[in-house]
């Protein structure tokens, strides 16, 4: 066998019907694109989740009002007023939750902040000084508010980098006063550019004492979240249980199915995020599998057509000395070259699309998203494409190789 000429012959077979070859490739292209997307975005999601564990810490437990949402549409059920100041007081008692190290209530909402002629609408978070410790984010300028300021309904605010940029541009913001819902707040700190962490964009927040937020901004007496930190990672599960028991006692709930709150640990939040990415991966994997299978059938179909069309050519080659094996290899190589070409296009398209997705996630959703193409994805993509050519090409190629030189020449 002369390899160079065998490849050349197979390539010529494909170029005779360029359009047909290209259309046949589409299924393979889509399938391989999906594989590249799965692996690239999967890697990105994993990186993102890992960076979140690192920023939040595994000891953090979040308590939200309402029952646990069963899906996106169920999120409204968390907007209830079941978490109050009294719950915080009960949870703080050592005999109720012995392994509780820190506790911080949170209220949040969106409000317009005004400085002179500039206005911007950040997410307002009412918290305590523990915010920096729990979320592991510290002001790059100024400071966080003290417990006294929280108790005293102080009019102080720490703003995210984007909020600062929108209101002050390049001017200094520290010590300036901004108006939120008609009330003046003094800027005592500015957060560094951080991006999205967990479900918050830290560049787009303004944090104030929760007391001030409840009283003057939102006019409510309840909390949107209570965040608890356990004294150690080992005690997280026990603390979760203690919290549930304490809150049920406090809310006079005897049946756990009637809970008007739910408790979530970082591990659970992580599980939820990864279950979403799992669904996404499964979805793309299904697309990949279906389109690769359909694409493979398409390849087989077009190769069968090609074998029939080229009966005369096959006969001629055999008459001139080609063995069945020569013909088998020629047609198998055509199928493999076809699917491999589809694989290469799919890989290029997959890289391009995952770059776009990364760009959108990074720039518009401010996620800390890293664009990466695992080498394994490229090898896998090429490998699968080649394998499909082999699997779906073998039957037409065998059919071609079995044609008799004489029968083939008789064909008109």
């Amino acid at each position, binding site marked *: 066998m002369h390899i160079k*000429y065998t490849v050349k012959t197979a390539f010529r077979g494909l170029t005779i019907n360029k359009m047909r070859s290209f259309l046949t490739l589409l299924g393979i292209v889509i399938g391989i694109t999906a594989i590249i997307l799965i692996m690239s975005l999967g890697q990105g999601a994993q990186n993102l989740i890992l960076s979140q564990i690192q920023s939040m810490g595994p000891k953090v437990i979040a308590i939200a009002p309402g029952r646990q949402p069963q899906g996106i549409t169920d999120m409204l059920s968390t907007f209830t007023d079941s978490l109050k100041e009294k719950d915080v007081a009960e949870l703080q008692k050592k005999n109720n939750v012995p392994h509780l190290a820190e506790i911080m209530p949170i209220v949040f909402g969106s409000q317009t902040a005004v400085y002179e002629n500039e206005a911007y609408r950040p997410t307002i978070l009412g918290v305590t000084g523990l915010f920096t410790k729990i979320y592991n984010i510290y002001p790059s300028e100024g400071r966080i508010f003290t417990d006294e300021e929280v108790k005293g309904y102080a009019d102080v605010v720490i703003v995210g980098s984007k909020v600062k940029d929108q209101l002050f541009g390049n001017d200094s913001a520290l010590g300036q006063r901004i108006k939120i819902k008609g009330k003046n707040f003094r800027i005592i700190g500015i957060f560094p550019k951080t991006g999205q962490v967990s479900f918050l964009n830290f560049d787009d927040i303004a944090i104030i004492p929760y007391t001030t937020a409840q009283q003057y901004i939102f006019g409510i007496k309840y909390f949107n979240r209570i965040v608890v930190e356990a004294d150690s990672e080992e005690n997280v599960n026990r603390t979760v249980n203690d919290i549930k028991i304490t809150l049920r006692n406090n809310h006079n709930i005897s049946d756990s199915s009637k809970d008007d709150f739910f408790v979530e640990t970082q591990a659970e939040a992580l599980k939820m995020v990864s279950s979403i990415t799992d669904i996404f991966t499964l979805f793309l994997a299904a697309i990949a599998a279906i389109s690769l299978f359909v694409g493979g059938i398409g390849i087989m179909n077009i190769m069968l057509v090609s074998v029939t069309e080229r009966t005369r050519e096959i006969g001629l080659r055999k008459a001139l*000395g*080609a063995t069945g094996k020569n013909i088998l290899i020629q047609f198998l190589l055509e199928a493999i070259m076809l699917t491999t070409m589809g694989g290469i296009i799919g890989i290029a398209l997959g890289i391009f699309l995952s770059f776009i997705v990364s760009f959108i996630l990074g720039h518009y959703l401010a996620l800390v998203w890293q664009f990466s193409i695992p080498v394994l994805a490229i090898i896998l993509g090429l490998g699968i494409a080649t394998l499909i050519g082999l699997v779906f090409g073998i039957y037409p190629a065998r059919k071609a190789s079995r044609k008799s030189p004489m029968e083939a020449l008789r064909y008109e």
Partner: protein
Amino acid sequence: MTAIIKAVKLEKTYRDEIETIALRGLDFSVEKGEFISIMGPSGSGKSTLLHILGFLDRLTGGDYLFEEKSMNDYSDEGLAQVRNEKMGFIFQAFNLLPRTSVLENVKLPLLYSDVKESLWDEMALKAIDSVGMSHRKDYEPAHLSGGEKQRIAIARALVNNPSVIFADEPTGNLDSKSGSQVMEILEKLHIEGHTIILVTHETYTAEYAHRLIKIKDGLIEVDQIVEQKHKHQNGFFK
């Protein structure tokens, strides 16, 4: 002198839904350097005979010895190898590969040979030159006339320097002028020492041969030496 081709009670029966006896026991032999034409009405079995002599089809009875070795001793791969190294084929429908240059078409048999790739161009150009088509070596078949196509097909049959050239109605798709040119090339090859077996139903082409075998109903009806009318008269190559 030993026979290059020897048929001994050669039989061929097709067994599809109905049994068809195509050849009923043929005995003849061909010496090296002979130019034989095989004639017969359609259905006489002449094409079947050519297929078997050309190792394209198996026989069902008797024996066929090519260069003193029985066809039955060859595997399918072995038959392919003999076709590639010892036989050249010229077909009625030319059977050139479309969108492939003359040079590449002529090289085709070498693809399946043991000949080193570095020699291919030289061998192909020599074969093209011997049919007077050097000026067309980069053309594609679509741009050639019928006569030119058949001359390229002859070059392809010659490229591996075969022992026997089989021609199946080589002038069947050509006008008489192109047909004559093709026949004159075959005649020239014969003079150069090639063994040629020609299947035809046209008397004027058969007359180029030195021996005529007529087949009817699967049997040899006539096997005779032919008087040379055409010999070097108005010859293309003089």
